[in-house]
């Protein structure tokens, strides 16, 4: 178990190093000189050189890479090329916003998908199960931003129940925070829920085929009870995998919903920084996203060990 843990941690570390190199290399080939973009195109070459020097863009790439990594590891990523302000607090702010959005949406997706998916599996030959199945298929087919636009049109503009967009930090005004969170979370969460139900359904279907459930049923337990008592734990393995993957997609997938709902999250920071060629900022945002994904994968791996007794045994 410990060995397995160490092995996983090692993989995480290795992945982090490799991906940081990839991200850095990618940024190095990005066209558009950040100093020139910051200064405006008619700026003199001398001014551009001076600014490059100020940013340290004239140093060898290896040195630039190392100082970047150092900044990340010490949680002091330095200043933005464009705004000249410290990057760290900004990243923290934006990440917080996106996490609120993504985690809430994910929670909504899970809360909806697990019962619905289970029902779909248990009743998969019945009209109700098929109907749910059809609904989830349609849900999967709707782009999240379209869902957002429609939700705004109906609940904000037409009915006036909720604000159309915006973001208020929870500490500032908790009521407004919740109000503004409802629609983006719905548009992000429901589409995810549709995807997730498919996986829950298929995982539960598999479990239903297992022998021990047959036995339980033979003992007279009703299918739902048998499933809840014996099967959900096993069904959760593939579901957790998918959750991890989805969480990763969602972190960046939220960018579209952030745009629709004017939420100052990580995704919108990425888009802004790309267009302003604020390279160091882009690098940092991408790296945060990548780290988040890798860490989520790592956690999922650990969860396997907890959930699946077979894996634990196999690890020894």
């Amino acid at each position, binding site marked *: 178990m410990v060995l397995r843990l160490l092995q996983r941690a090692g993989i995480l570390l290795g992945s982090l190093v490799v991906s940081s190199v990839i991200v850095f290399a990618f940024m190095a080939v990005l066209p558009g000189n950040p100093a020139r973009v910051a200064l405006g*195109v008619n700026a003199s070459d001398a001014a551009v050189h001076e600014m490059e020097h100020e940013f340290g863009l004239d140093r060898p790439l290896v040195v630039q890479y190392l100082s970047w990594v150092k900044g990340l590891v010490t949680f002091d990523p330095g200043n933005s090329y464009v705004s000249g302000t410290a990057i760290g607090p900004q990243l923290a702010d934006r990440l917080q916003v996106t996490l609120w959005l993504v985690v809430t949406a994910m929670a909504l997706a899970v809360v909806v998908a697990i019962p619905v998916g289970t029902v779909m599996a248990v009743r998969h030959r019945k009209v109700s199960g098929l109907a749910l199945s059809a609904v989830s298929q349609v849900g999967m087919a709707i782009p999240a931003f379209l869902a957002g636009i429609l939700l705004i049109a109906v609940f904000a503009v037409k009915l006036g129940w909720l604000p159309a967009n915006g973001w208020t930090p929870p500490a500032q005004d908790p009521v407004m925070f919740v109000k503004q969170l409802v629609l983006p979370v719905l548009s992000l969460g429901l589409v995810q829920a549709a995807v997730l139900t498919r996986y829950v359904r298929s995982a539960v279907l598999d479990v239903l085929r297992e022998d021990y459930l047959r036995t339980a049923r033979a003992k007279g337990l009703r299918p739902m009870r048998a499933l809840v008592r014996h099967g959900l734990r096993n069904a959760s393995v593939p579901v957790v995998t998918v959750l991890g993957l989805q969480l990763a997609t969602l972190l960046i997938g939220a960018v579209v919903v952030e745009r629709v709902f004017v939420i100052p999250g990580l995704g919108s920071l990425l888009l802004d920084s790309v267009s302003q060629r604020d390279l160091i900022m882009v690098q940092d945002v991408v790296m945060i996203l990548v780290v988040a994904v890798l860490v989520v994968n790592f956690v999922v791996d650990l969860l396997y060990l907890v959930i699946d007794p077979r894996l634990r045994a196999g690890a020894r």
Partner: protein
Amino acid sequence: MRHHIKKTALVVAAAASLVLASCSAGSSTSGGGDESPGGGATGGATGGTAGGQEASNASLSIGLVAEPANLDFTKTDGAAIPQVLLYNVYEGLVQLDQKGDIAPGLATSWTVSKDRKTYTFNLTKDAKFTNGKPFTAADAKFSIDRVKKDWTISLKSAMDVVDHAKVVSPTKLQVVLSHPSNDWLYRMTTRVGAMFSRTGVDHLATKPIGTGPYKLGKWTRGDSISLLRNNSYWGDKPYYKTVTFKYFKDPTALNNALLTGTINVIGTVQTPESLGQFENNNKYQVIEGTTNGEVVLSFNNGSGPMKNKKMRQAVRYAIDHKALLDTCWAGRGTLIGSMVPPTDPWYEDLTGLYPHDVAMAKTLLKESGEANETLRLRIPTLPYAVSCGTVVKSQLEQAGFKVKLDQLEFPAAWLSTVFTNADYDMSIIAHVEPRDMGAVFGDPKYYTRYTNPAFSNLLKQADEGTEQEQVTDMKKAAKMLSQDAAADWLFVLPNIIVADKGITGLPKNAISESFDVTGLAGS
């Protein structure tokens, strides 16, 4: 950059608060020989109450599209920074009033010497910077000198004509030009003329310090910038206690924000097709005027097929401007035939020079010998450019041109490909800088690559001549430019503001670089 190009491509603004002052200062630069007094007896900003309203505790939220990257317009280009800061946080010696005339600002009056090279400004003694320091002639000299010395944006060249500035007394500043220039005082109304504190320029990117009626409140990056009323302002206090500029990347989100009461004003409508939902609703007022933003179908005059004058002319004949404006910008905006917006003194309707004439276009295309060339129409990813690009391509193809449409990410990719490297045949961009004919076409190294010594001479004459000569020469220059088909002018962007009913003082025309909120009031 001489002009600035920004996502909004609009400098929405106007000095609504200074309507009173404008009457007295209208002809301040008419220096025909005599020393002409500038400004009225009272300074502009001290005359009357802003917008005729008492200061209140109300707040106002204005929705815009392009957020500044930082707050330092001395080093960072773009319209977004002066839009928020100029006239609100920073003041100049002079400012532009709603009619487009030069009105007093921190200078209550000024005189121009006989040879029109020496300007003497009488400064207010009441103004104070938000760092507590009083505004004096030394600060004014410092600010003017600093443009040449420390500014990096190309607009700073407006100050090149200044030979030196001299402090005569704490309230009297003399500026001596190296040659007479009609343009210089005008440029002093733009960001170039903003007055800084000698001890307040260390953190311009985040902490602007000016003398204006507002000071910076909170900047939530990616979301909003709020301005707070400056209670120690030397002039009349503005009506709103706080004004928040909220930024919306997505124009539809901007509309929704007004519809659901998140904001009170849409500063620049980017989706003219959506205006119906406001015009048919008596909760809102729609204000439509004009701007300085000429949407230009620019040609690469320096190389490639568009170097051929017949090609350029053919393109101009092939475009149906009326139909283009109707489809591209819902028919809102003004058709022009040259690089002069209708609000400039030397405006002339030149749309008749190249009427829509497909037969003519086809003939010229054939004569040019370039008919087999595929024209690269490289447009930035901006709403009006994408929209107009679609129409231009279709119209040109109907006249027999071969056109390839490339969309370049704005600003970075477009700037480096089209603007810096001039690797394009045609592009579409709104030049929003005031009086930018010289900037866009007077410099052979500019991306239009237009070289015409006769044109440049006219501009120089216009700048150095009398005010009357300036108007005549600028008219001539504009016509020469148009006849030479140096570009095609699609239309002038309209200034469309939608606001809650009851908000007064919103400017009809956006002709300065500032979204001046000092004259706004509620009811």
